[in-house]
């Protein structure tokens, strides 16, 4: 995994003489004390962490905790008071004006909370803006813009103006405009906060989808814990300008660094953080579709279970055989393929528990968990689903017998 952004001891202080407040923070004065004493506001203090290439890095925290201040340092809309930010090894805090322009044009693009669209330009003209200022020929930038408009699903709206679109669509324009620059890094400051919950969820999924395809490094800000844990590969939690903890959602839930974070994640909906792969059990008994019913019965007997999944040679799921059907089948001299039941529920290993609940309730058999190649990787029982919501240790619980 390569590191794309290194944030080193970055501080940002607002006020007439920002540098003067640095020693005070070092002495351990709080944000309020510094504000009272010197009339300087601490936006971010001493943030240090790395962001890897291609990951979705979420910065989360309450209002006023310094999230925007920090993300705006990455493209120097805010100049850090202290510290350095290395983009692929280049310290952008030391860039000249021209170098900065180049970085902004080529490496890093931003999506804004209230979209920041140019209301006097059509959707197409909005999306091609980044290329226009780089003097890319009209034909070429039209073509690239068009592609990105299609990527975000806005084909047919090219000649509309932003105020003719709904909020969700406007933010798609914001996203398309950022993607058109083909940046390595996407900065997104609460991009979905202005949208209603349903649209928001749809946009989250779509963002992940786009991320999967284009492999951008995404820095995403939210004050919504559920959103953070849903889309973040790693999450940084901020409080009063400090970065309190950086880790994967699972790590943070399993080992909150302090009281504040425990409190913060208390009402997180675990069913939206944990995926099928976190709570599934690896199957210890399987039969191949080439095997006979006797083999199936033997497998079930040896493992003390009442049904067993049937897979083909490349471990793709075919169906399930119950012990009753198998015994009945032998009596009637049937083969495995005659008694195999195909009405099983198959889920992807990346599906969230939240989405599994209805499926688990409907299905009369264990859920079969497959990976993206459709290979069986595990199974989930109803009890698994429910225990995944309550138990602290979700990984690999004891083997279930069924």
């Amino acid at each position, binding site marked *: 995994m390569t590191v794309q952004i290194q944030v080193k001891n970055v501080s940002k202080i607002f006020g007439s003489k920002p540098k003067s407040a640095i020693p005070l923070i070092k002495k351990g004065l709080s944000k309020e004390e510094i504000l009272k004493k010197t009339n300087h506001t601490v936006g971010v203090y001493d943030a240090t962490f790395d962001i890897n290439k291609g990951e979705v890095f979420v910065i989360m925290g309450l209002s006023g905790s310094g999230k925007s201040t920090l993300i705006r340092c990455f493209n120097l809309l805010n100049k850090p008071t202290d510290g350095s930010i290395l983009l692929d090894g280049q310290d952008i805090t030391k860039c000249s004006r021209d170098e900065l322009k180049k970085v*902004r044009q080529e490496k890093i693009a931003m999506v804004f909370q209230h979209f920041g669209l*140019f209301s006097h*330009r059509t959707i197409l003209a909005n999306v091609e803006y980044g290329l226009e200022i780089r003097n890319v020929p009209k034909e070429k930038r039209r073509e690239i813009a068009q592609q990105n408009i299609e990527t975000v699903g806005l084909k047919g709206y090219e000649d509309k103006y932003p105020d003719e679109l709904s909020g969700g669509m406007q933010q798609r324009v914001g996203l398309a405009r950022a993607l058109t620059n083909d940046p390595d890094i996407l900065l997104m400051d609460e991009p979905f906060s202005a949208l209603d919950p349903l649209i928001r969820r749809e946009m989250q999924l779509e963002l992940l989808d786009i991320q999967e395809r284009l492999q951008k490094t995404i820095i995403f800000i939210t004050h919504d814990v559920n959103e953070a844990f849903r889309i973040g590969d790693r999450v940084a939690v901020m409080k009063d300008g400090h970065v309190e903890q950086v880790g994967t959602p699972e790590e943070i839930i399993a080992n909150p660094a302090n009281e504040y974070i425990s409190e913060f994640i208390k009402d997180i909906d675990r069913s939206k953080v944990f995926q099928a792969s976190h709570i599934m059990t690896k199957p210890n008994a399987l039969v191949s579709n080439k095997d006979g019913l006797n083999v199936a019965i033997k497998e079930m007997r040896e493992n003390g279970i009442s049904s067993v999944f049937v897979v083909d040679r490349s471990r793709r799921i075919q169906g399930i055989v119950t012990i009753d059907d198998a015994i009945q089948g032998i009596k009637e001299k049937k083969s495995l393929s005659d008694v195999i039941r195909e009405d099983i529920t198959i889920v992807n290993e990346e599906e969230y528990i939240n989405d599994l609940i209805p499926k688990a309730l409907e299905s009369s058999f264990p859920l079969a968990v497959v990976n993206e190649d459709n290979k069986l990787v595990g199974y989930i029982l109803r009890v698994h689903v429910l225990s995944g919501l309550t138990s602290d240790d979700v990984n690999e619980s004891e083997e279930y017998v069924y």
Partner: protein
Amino acid sequence: MLMISFPDITFEAGKYVDDLVSFLADNLEALFDFIFFVTSRSISGLTDFLMIIPWWLFIIIIFLLGWYFKSFFSGILYGIFIFLIGTFGLWEEMMITISIILTAVIICLIIGIPLGVAMAFNKWVSMILRPILDAMQTMPSFVYLIPAIFFFGLGNVSAIFATLIYSLPPVIRLTDLAIRGVDKEVVESAHSFGSSRWQTLTKVQLPQALPTIMAGVNQTTMMALAMVVIASMVGASGLGEQVLVSINRIDIALGFEAGISIVFLAIIIDRITNGIAEKVQRRGGNQ
């Protein structure tokens, strides 16, 4: 000793201004001659051009403008207004007045918009200009006539000069206001793509500010029109001159006709520039 009357201290501020004006008039003669030449040529050129247009075509143009920017009936009404002015026998005077106003407004925009932009971007410029603009707007407009005559003699150019000083402030003010009023996030998004300052200004800030700037243009035009009669005191021809003549002769008929013609022009210009502003508004930013 009760100190009732003001002590015998004199500070002749007026005299210094007088000296300054004479100094400028003497030493920058070439400059003023040049300005005089360009301005008087553009006014007469514009008037000649307007006079070439056949009367019926002009009425149709006004009708179409009214229709496009307001409504069909407004268009008809404006057409009738222009026709009426013609029937008063004031066609040529009207054209001269329109030329003077147009010239003044165009010069206002050429000077005013850059100054407004400078004000929005630089707090020093803003600090210096603000009181000057206040003074320009509150000083009785007759006062401008005196230096105008000094620099340009009697005639249309002096009229333009006086009109300019009177009607420049709204463009500057509203441009400044408009630029500063552009949504911060929109400007930041322009920066975030690596726009240069010039690109941000021309591609984002000015277009976004356009509706408000247009409101300034409307105000400026109306103020220029309001100056028409006053400007005729320094020799501007056109409708204003007719009003002045009618006052001197106590000619009520002429006074009424010239006066109502100015009102007609005011209505037409106001509604049309307003209509333009509204059309721009629908696409522009700031809301």
